[in-house]
C-alpha cells in the first residue's frame, strides 16, 4: 500500500519523508513475516499426510486394531498393546538389536568415512574415481545393494569362497541365517552403504583446512600420522558431531537392507524396533501392536532430535 502511494504521488515523497522512514522498516518487517506464507503449502501438506497419520498411529497404539477392524471403530484397550508386545518376548530383543545395530553402523560409518575421506582428499585420478564410484553406490537403490550383498554372503558366494579358499573356515559361514552372524552382517553392509556419504562430507571439511597449516606442520617435521591426529581430527570435530547424529538416525531408521537380506530373521535375530513394528502390522496383521512398537520408536526419535538440534546449533555457533 505505501509503495502504491509513493509511486502514484512522487511529488509528495519529500514532504512525506519523515513518516516514510518510520513506515518503511515496519512495512519491511511485515513483508518479511509474510514470507512465512511460502511455507504454508508444505505445512498443510505435512499436517494432513504426516502429522495426522502420526496422531492416528498414537490412537491405534492404544486400541485393538486388526486387519478386520481396521476401518471400523476401534476398541480402546489402554496399554494392552505395549504390554502384549513386551510379554510376547519380541520387544526387548528388538530393542537390544536396535542398539547393537546402531552402534555398529555408527562406529564403522564414522571411522570408515573419515578414513576414506583422508585417503581420497588427494587430487589423483584414482582418488577421484573411487570417490565417484562410492557416491554412485550410495545413490543406488538400497534394494539393489542389499540384493548383491545377499548374493555375495551366500553359501557359495564370493566371501565364502575366499574364506574356505584361504582356509579360514572348513565350511561356509552362514552369514545371513545364523543368529550369531546375521545382525552383524546386515549392520556391516549398512555401514558400507553409508560410508560414501560420510566420506564426502568429511572430505569437504578436510579440504577446508588451509594449505598453509599443512605446510607449516611439514616444515616442523610432522609425519602423516601426526598430521591426521593433530590437525585433521581436531579440524573435523564439529562435522563429526553432526554426522554422528545423522548416521545414528540413518541406522535407526534402516529398513531396506533388513527387509532384503534377512527379513528380520533368523527368528528375531535381525528384528530392530522399526522392523518389528512392520512385521507386527503387515505380517501378523496386529495393527494395534505394530502401532505400539512404532510409537516407542517415534519417542526415541524425539530424544535424538533434541540432541541433533543442539549439535547443529553448536556447529553454527562455532563456524
Amino acid at each position: 500500500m505505501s509503495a502504491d502511494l509513493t509511486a502514484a504521488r512522487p511529488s509528495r515523497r519529500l514532504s512525506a519523508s519523515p513518516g516514510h522512514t518510520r513506515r518503511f522498516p515496519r512495512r519491511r518487517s511485515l513483508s518479511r513475516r509474510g514470507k512465512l506464507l511460502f511455507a504454508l503449502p508444505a505445512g498443510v501438506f505435512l499436517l494432513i499426510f504426516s502429522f495426522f497419520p502420526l496422531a492416528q498411529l498414537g490412537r491405534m497404539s492404544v486400541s485393538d486394531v486388526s486387519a478386520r477392524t481396521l476401518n471400523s471403530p476401534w476398541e480402546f484397550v489402554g496399554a494392552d498393546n505395549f504390554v502384549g508386545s513386551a510379554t510376547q518376548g519380541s520387544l526387548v530383543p528388538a530393542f537390544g538389536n536396535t542398539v547393537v545395530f546402531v552402534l555398529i553402523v555408527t562406529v564403522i560409518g564414522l571411522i570408515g568415512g573419515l578414513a576414506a575421506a583422508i585417503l581420497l582428499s588427494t587430487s589423483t585420478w584414482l582418488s577421484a574415481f573411487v570417490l565417484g564410484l562410492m557416491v554412485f553406490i550410495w545413490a543406488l537403490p538400497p534394494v539393489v545393494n542389499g540384493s548383491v550383498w545377499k548374493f555375495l554372503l551366500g553359501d557359495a558366494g564370493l566371501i565364502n569362497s575366499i574364506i574356505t579358499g584361504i582356509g579360514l573356515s572348513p565350511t561356509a559361514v552362514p552369514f545371513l541365517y545364523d543368529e550369531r552372524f546375521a545382525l552383524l552382517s546386515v549392520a556391516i553392509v549398512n555401514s558400507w552403504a553409508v560410508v560414501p556419504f560420510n566420506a564426502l562430507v568429511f572430505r569437504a571439511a578436510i579440504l577446508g583446512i588451509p594449505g598453509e597449516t599443512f605446510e607449516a606442520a611439514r616444515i616442523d617435521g610432522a609425519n602423516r600420522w601426526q598430521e591426521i591426529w593433530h590437525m585433521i581430527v581436531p579440524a573435523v570435530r564439529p562435522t563429526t558431531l553432526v554426522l554422528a547424529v545423522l548416521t545414528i538416525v540413518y541406522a535407526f531408521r534402516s529398513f531396506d537392507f533388513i527387509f532384503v537380506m534377512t527379513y528380520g530373521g533368523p527368528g528375531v535375530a535381525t528384528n530392530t524396533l522399526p522392523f518389528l513394528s512392520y512385521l507386527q502390522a503387515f505380517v501378523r496383521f496386529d495393527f494395534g501392536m505394530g502401532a505400539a512398537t512404532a510409537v516407542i520408536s517415534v519417542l526415541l526419535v524425539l530424544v535424538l532430535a533434541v540432541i541433533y538440534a543442539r549439535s547443529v546449533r553448536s556447529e553454527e555457533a562455532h563456524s
Partner: protein
Amino acid sequence: MSIVIPRADATASAPSSPQPRRKKRFEPVAGPLRVVLLLIYAVPILFIVLTSLKQPGDVISSQSSFLFTPTLDAYTNVLSTSGLFVAMQQSLVIAAGTTALTLLVAIPAGYGLARVDSRITTIGLGLLIVLQMVPQTANVIPLYQIFGAWGLLDQNAGVIIADTALLIPFATLLLRPFFRAVPEALEEAASIDGASIPRTFWSIMLPIARNGVATTGTLVFLLSWGEFLYAVNFFLSPGNYPLSALLAQQVSAFGINWPGLMALGVITSIPILILFTFTYRLLREGLTLGAVK
C-alpha cells in the same frame, strides 16, 4: 550462492597448493589402502553385472567364478516378462510425480524458512527435523489405514503422496541453506524497483538458487526411485509394482533366480547411472552443504 562458490573454490584450489607436494611423497600405506577401498566398492558392482550375464546353472555350481560363457539370457527373460515395462513405467511415474510435487511444495517452504527468523521458523525447522527422523514404518502403518478409508490404496497417487510427505522435510532442509546464501540486498533492490514478493522469488531467488533446486530434485528422484516400502504395501497386487518393489519382492522369495534378479538390478540401476553421470558434480557440492546445515 555465496556459500556455494567458496566451497567450490575450496575443493578446486585447496588441493592444488598442498597436493603437488603430497603427491611426490612415497605413500607406503595410503596407496594400497586406496586400492582396497576401490575393491570394496567395485567388486559388488562387478558381481551384479557378471552374474546377470550368467546362466542360472552357472550360479549353482560356483557363484564366484569368473570363467563362464556370457549370455544375455537373463536379460531377454526379464525383458520378455510382460510386467517389466509396466514396472518401468510405474517407477518413472512415481519418481517423476514425487519429484515434481515435492519441489513444488518444498521450494517455497525452503525460501520462507530461510528468510524469516522468528519463533515459528524455529518450531517449523524442529518439526521438519523430527519428521525426517521418524522411521518409515511408523508412517506406513497409519497411512495404510487412512489411504484405505480415502480410496487411495492401489493408486499411483497414494504412493506419490506418501513419498512426497516422506521427502518434503528432507527437501526443505536441504534447500533452505541455498536460499539463505542469496544476499538479502538483492531482494531489497528488487522490491525498491517495485517487484512484488512472488515476482522477486520467481525471477531472482529461484534462478540464483538453481543449483540447490537441481541437487534437491536429483536426490528426491533417486530416493523415490528406490523407495519400495510404500509401493509393496499400498499396491494390492504385484502387477502395479515399480521396479524397486519388484526387486524387493523377488529377493525375499525362496529359490532366487540370481541371474534374473541381477539383470533386474542392472535395469533398475541404469537410469540412476545416467542421472548420476549428469549430476555428480552438483551432488558432490550440494550434499556437503546441505548435510551440515
